[in-house]
């Protein structure tokens, strides 16, 4: 093993030349250039969306939030919070879930998709939580709760803000070894790897608290949220649902990545990929079951039977049956029949259910009694789409440059292994 290490870190000149400041800048400039075909249908459409989104953002900052959003005195939060931040962060829950499975529980089977998942989580926090800045009236004051201008520690939002920041840093630490491999910084990589376990433990703790904290935010609006959605258990419900929200997103995202970045992925990993998807389906199913029972307990405790036979009650049933019960059934069938296609379909439906739930709590069931209901303006939807496209562009740029989908040829994983796991580890070693 030690011999292997010696080969992995030759004392020759760095192939990227990024070991000097000048070389680093030259390498970075070279990497900034686009790779591959530029005028693909996806690029044209997403580029158009991003361009339009940037124009809308300029208008928003020049003339205020009212110029392009449908926000009102009655609805201070729209889809930029309800979808971009609240739903986006739930979907980023896959990163801490997989980190728990791989780093804490030591299930190496999922390691091939770990980096892509953590990268996606990191970018989700940068872009979707970053979209929060668009929604703030005075975004330059966002540093106030951080620099200690006045600590509002009685606020759940204070906790969420700090956790967003700290967790984004944790995720950067978790993904940093890939950056060092890309730049060919073997020494720094060695130290970066030492920080991973600490970052993972801290990251999971932070995630537990801010995933539930996003739900706790709405406990202050107890007399504004429909009783079918308001509950003292919102924090726990948000935390548990972030597990299957995250896993279903990882299933969907990795299935897509596998098609798009096919050439980057080791053939052996292709073989184990179905197994990985089925494993995650089992995890999602378990979390869905737990969530369903929590919802049932909540419903029974609230004695809301009479509310079911109202328009909002039917809408509630749509969320429960379509977003929880249906995925439970489909995931069960998929697992029993080893049907990967059905796993992907179930993950897609689960994700829709999560979107529905988060939008219900934050927007739809919020002031359900109001005469002037909030509907997002086309500009709000456009900007949201632009943020998603930007995230995909950033993801693609990083994946086609850094060792995310595969192991770096010069840095094979040479950890101590269990004999049973050699099969799984081969995909990494083979890359060298």
């Amino acid at each position, binding site marked *: 093993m030690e011999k292997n290490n010696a080969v992995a870190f030759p004392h020759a000149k760095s192939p990227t030349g990024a070991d000097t400041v000048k070389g680093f800048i030259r390498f970075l400039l070279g990497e900034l250039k686009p790779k591959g075909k530029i005028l693909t249908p996806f690029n044209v459409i997403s580029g158009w969306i991003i361009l339009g989104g940037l124009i809308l953002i300029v208008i928003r900052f020049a003339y205020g939030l009212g110029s392009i959003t449908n926000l009102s005195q009655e609805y201070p939060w729209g889809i930029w919070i309800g979808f971009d931040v609240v739903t986006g962060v739930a979907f980023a829950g896959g990163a801490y879930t997989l980190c728990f499975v791989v780093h804490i529980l030591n299930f190496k089977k999922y390691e091939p998709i770990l980096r892509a998942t953590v990268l996606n989580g990191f970018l989700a926090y940068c872009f979707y939580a970053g979209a929060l800045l668009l929604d703030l009236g005075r*975004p330059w004051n966002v540093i106030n709760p951080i620099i200690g201008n006045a600590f509002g520690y009685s*606020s759940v939002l204070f906790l969420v803000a700090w956790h967003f920041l700290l967790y984004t840093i944790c995720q950067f630490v978790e993904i940093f070894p890939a950056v060092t491999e890309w730049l060919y910084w073997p020494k720094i990589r060695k130290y970066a790897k030492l920080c991973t376990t600490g970052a993972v433990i801290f990251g999971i703790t932070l995630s537990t608290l801010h995933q539930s904290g996003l739900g*706790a935010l709405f406990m202050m609006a107890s007399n504004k949220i429909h009783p079918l959605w308001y509950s003292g258990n919102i924090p726990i419900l948000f935390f548990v649902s972030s597990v299957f929200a995250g896993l279903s997103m990882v299933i969907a995202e990795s299935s897509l990545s596998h098609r798009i970045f096919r050439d980057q992925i080791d053939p052996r990993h292709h073989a184990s990929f179905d197994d990985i998807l089925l494993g995650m389906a089992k995890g999602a199913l378990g979390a869905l079951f737990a969530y369903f029972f929590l919802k049932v307990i909540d419903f029974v405790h609230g004695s809301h039977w009479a509310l079911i036979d109202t328009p909002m009650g039917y809408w509630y049933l749509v969320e429960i049956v379509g977003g929880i019960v249906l995925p439970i059934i489909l995931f069960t069938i998929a697992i029993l029949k080893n049907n990967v296609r059905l796993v992907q379909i179930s993950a897609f439906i689960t994700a829709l259910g999560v979107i529905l739930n988060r939008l219900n709590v934050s927007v739809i069931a919020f002031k359900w009694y109001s005469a002037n209901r909030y509907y997002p303006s086309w500009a709000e939807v456009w900007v949201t789409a632009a943020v998603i496209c930007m995230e995909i562009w950033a993801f693609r740029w990083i994946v086609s440059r850094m060792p995310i989908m595969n192991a770096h040829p010069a840095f094979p994983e040479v950890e101590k292994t269990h004999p049973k796991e050699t099969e799984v580890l081969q995909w990494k070693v083979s890359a060298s």
Partner: protein
Amino acid sequence: MTISRRNFLKVAGAAGGALLAGGRKPAQAATAPEADPKGMEFYGMLIDTTKCIGCRSCEEACNEKNGLPRPEVSFSSESVFEKKRDTTPEAFTVLNKYPNPKDPDKPIFVRKQCMHCNQPACATACLVKALEKTPEGPVKYNKDRCMGCRYCMVSCPFDAPKYEYNSALPYLKKCVFCFDRVKNGEQPACVDACPEGASFFGKRRELIEIARQRIYQNPDKYHPYIYGEHEAGGTSMLFLSSVPVEKLDFRMNVGSTPYPEKTTGFLYAVPHIFILWPTLLYGLNYLTHNNDKETGHGEK
């Protein structure tokens, strides 16, 4: 030093008392403190809707005091009563007209503005303390701290804070109980302007006494309820009316729990999770990664 029995009892008593007092804090909070922790009593405003004639002097005084833009419809016009109004970033207090079932010729006018809760939801929700409960009672706004997240608007059970959506440099706008005047012992501009004494300024505790007295002495005139005495843990604005308050669009679903208590349970759990989770996770990590040595399965 020897501990005499007497001394011991003294110390034990003090410690026990402190423990009891600590444990009873939430209960005390639930009964709505009349005063700031420093011992200063909150000021309040008693609004007796049976005395209000709907002259809108309070609206005009508020407009002038806060330097707000003059509205298109003059303050002497009654046309504004045709529909129900809410406060706006340009109007911190508004009057609404309601039919009087007891005397159809004398409609009821109700003022609407920030309630200045004893334990405000907005100040609890604010992550930069831009909204603050002052020892005098007013909930003031430190505009330089505000980042414009509008969580206060989501939290406020009365929807009092309003936002300047059409400004590139927006602020939150609401009644601040003329804090600069109240601080110096003066009464707010709207109370100053009221010709009928319908809005009455004073220490909150004394105002509740006055309100009760009015109800006892005129049982036929008043509906026996002081809106604001217990709502959201008690508010500085107190309302008296001749008819049940729910008929005057007062929010009846606010409850009497102070809003900070809605999230204290969650926030108190945070340090526990911060201690327990890393311990548990590190323990699990240790167990799953050091199996090899113990069982001898590892390659070493």
